[in-house]
């Protein structure tokens, strides 16, 4: 196999690793926003979850307990968001921002109090984090050119949370489009009055949406510190929650399209990492910063209608008043 093809394959592999938290957060964003609640707190929920997962995994020795704790904390933050925006009809952007800033402060403050390591958790041992899962027949298929390599590098060898992230997409789509809950959720983000007058509680529907968002962000956060990384470092979400938000918009609030956006954004990041300092023919030094900024630039262009049109749910951002 040529060197280029292998490089490309490895980039795809990295894409998947980088996209996994984006995918989970994007699905979270879709649930929340489809119900009419803006969620810029994907970032903060993910960061809190990353810390919780690493801390609990370290203290208990079990990454699974870590995930469960992370999900609990993230859902609790979702409920705080709901309490502010659904129950008290507060500004959804302000509430999300508060959660993001709270998460920045809380993770470091509690981290220092618990571990005295400048806000980090101690590095996790392999038993405390999610290791790669080697699929069946990797050895057997290895002899087949191309397919064997693809199977080994791209499909096999990720940790369980990556597969969970990929599974979250069809699951979200099924929930949104094939179930009673999904029909009501989509309706409440468009015309909440219709849902209310049909005898369904707007408040409870939206709470369920922000709680599901919390659940998914929780897994995403756990992935950062106990799957992709080996321990928590401060600000480790590094804006991924906002990229996921961009992916939600870029995917026009639909799971499959959002998956595409996440993979594209992940690929840009993986490519940027690989091309750091590399001289490209014709272009010169690879424009790494431009590649990293592309998700944001493309989202701006899409929102402005220069490349297609994205229609947000009609009732988004508006508290429901009878």
């Amino acid at each position, binding site marked *: 196999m040529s060197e280029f093809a292998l490089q490309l394959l490895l980039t795809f592999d990295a894409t998947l690793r980088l996209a996994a938290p984006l995918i989970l957060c994007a699905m979270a964003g879709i649930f929340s926003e489809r119900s009419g609640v*803006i969620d*810029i707190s994907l970032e903060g929920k993910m960061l809190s979850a990353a810390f919780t997962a690493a801390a609990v995994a370290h203290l208990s020795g079990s990454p699974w307990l870590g995930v469960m704790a992370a999900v609990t904390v993230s859902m609790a933050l979702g409920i*705080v968001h709901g*309490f*502010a*925006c659904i129950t*008290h*009809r*507060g*500004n*959804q*952007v*302000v*509430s999300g*921002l*508060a*959660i*993001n*800033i*709270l*998460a*920045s*402060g*809380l993770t*470091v*403050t*509690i981290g*220092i*109090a618990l571990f*005295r390591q400048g*806000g980090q958790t101690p590095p996790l041992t392999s038993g405390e984090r999610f290791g790669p899962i080697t699929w069946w027949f990797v050895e057997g298929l290895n002899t087949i050119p191309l397919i064997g390599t693809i199977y080994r590098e791209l499909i096999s060898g990720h940790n369980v949370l990556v597969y969970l992230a990929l599974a979250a997409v069809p699951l979200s789509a099924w929930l949104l489009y094939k179930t009673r809950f999904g029909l009501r959720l989509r309706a409440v983000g468009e015309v909440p009055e219709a849902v209310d007058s049909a005898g369904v509680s707007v408040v409870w529907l939206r709470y369920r949406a922000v709680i599901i968002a919390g659940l998914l962000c929780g897994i995403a956060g756990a992935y950062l510190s106990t799957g992709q990384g080996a321990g928590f470092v401060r600000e480790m979400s590094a*804006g991924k929650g*906002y990229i996921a*938000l*961009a992916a939600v*918009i870029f995917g026009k609030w639909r799971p499959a399209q959002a998956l595409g956006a996440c993979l594209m954004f992940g690929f840009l990041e993986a490519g940027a990492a690989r091309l750091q300092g590399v001289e490209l023919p014709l272009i010169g030094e690879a*424009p790494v*910063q*431009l590649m*990293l*900024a592309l998700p*944001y*630039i493309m*989202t*701006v262009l899409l*929102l*402005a*209608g*220069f490349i297609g049109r994205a229609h*947000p749910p009609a009732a988004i951002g508006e508290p429901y008043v*009878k």
Partner: protein
Amino acid sequence: MSATPPLPRWADLFLLPALNLLAAFFVCGLIVLAIGENPITALGVMIKGAFVYPGSLGYTLYYTTNFIFTGLAVAVAFHAMMFNIGGEGQAYVGGLGAGLVSLSLAGVMPSLIVLPLAVLGAALFGAAWGIVPGYLQAKRGSHIVITTIMFNFIAASLMVWLLAGPLIEPGQMSPQTPKFEPAGQLPSLQAILGALGISIANSPLNLSFLIALAALFGFWVLIWRTRLGYEIRTVGQNPEAARYAGINVPRVVIITLAISGALAGLMATNEILGVQHRVVLNFTAGYGFTGIAVALMGRNHPIGIFLASLLFGALYQGGAELDFEFQSITREMVLLIQGMIILFSGALAYMFNPPVARFLARYAAKREAAHV
């Protein structure tokens, strides 16, 4: 839906914000307690650190300067009911404007020419970074919140590229520009007052504090005394009525965002022209986001914004003191307090409204009954 009696004006203006602030501090106190420290002691350390130690007031006011600018930036947009969450990026790019002027002119011209131009550069670059989201909102219907968030990240990428590339100090590794010549540096207040024979402790407080005070007054005139301010408020409160009145709504939105961006950009006069004397990476340090808390707490009024800025200035300066005095609480505590303040004064601003209103109504009724 229970009926809530209307709240008296004084309660709405003072009692409710005070209660929200108290609630925020109370929850933070609980967290400090949970960590195993004494919140009262921590508060004492912060107050001492912010006001009592020599030079501490200067530091507090230096932070206050940043928050006045970013707070006003958010507030002017709020008056047009626009949520400019992009103060961070606008300030960052504003720093570029100030830096470019100082870098190119400070060696060849006197400070009396360079500094006003540098201040103008900060405002113009900030305005430019605000105008684009404003234009996209007004003419293309993009959601201003999302666009300004995206512009924060785009600004960060742009600045990394510039500071690590074209603008980097030759022969150095760290991503920052060369130091400005003295003509491109805003004088510190210590130097100014020293020249007048008044001696104060050393601190980063500089001339930009006075610019901030002027901006507060200018803001009041703009919003409540100019026709543009009237148009901004009309667009914010009722865009349809604005259209009826013949106000060009898209134009006002764009101008408002330009003013907002310019105010955010002016923050760079403090950090870049006044303190760092060069453009450095991430000098905005979240001050743009703090501006949102400042505007929310200050109710978009200059006096409120000044007081809120002072509070946050004291928190930042006092918070730094926590690092020295405690093992387990650090300046990140300030982020926590800030988050709580945004939550309680912003998102939950009216949580206490119904109970307070009911209490006051009952109290008033009782007093009336007693008088009869």
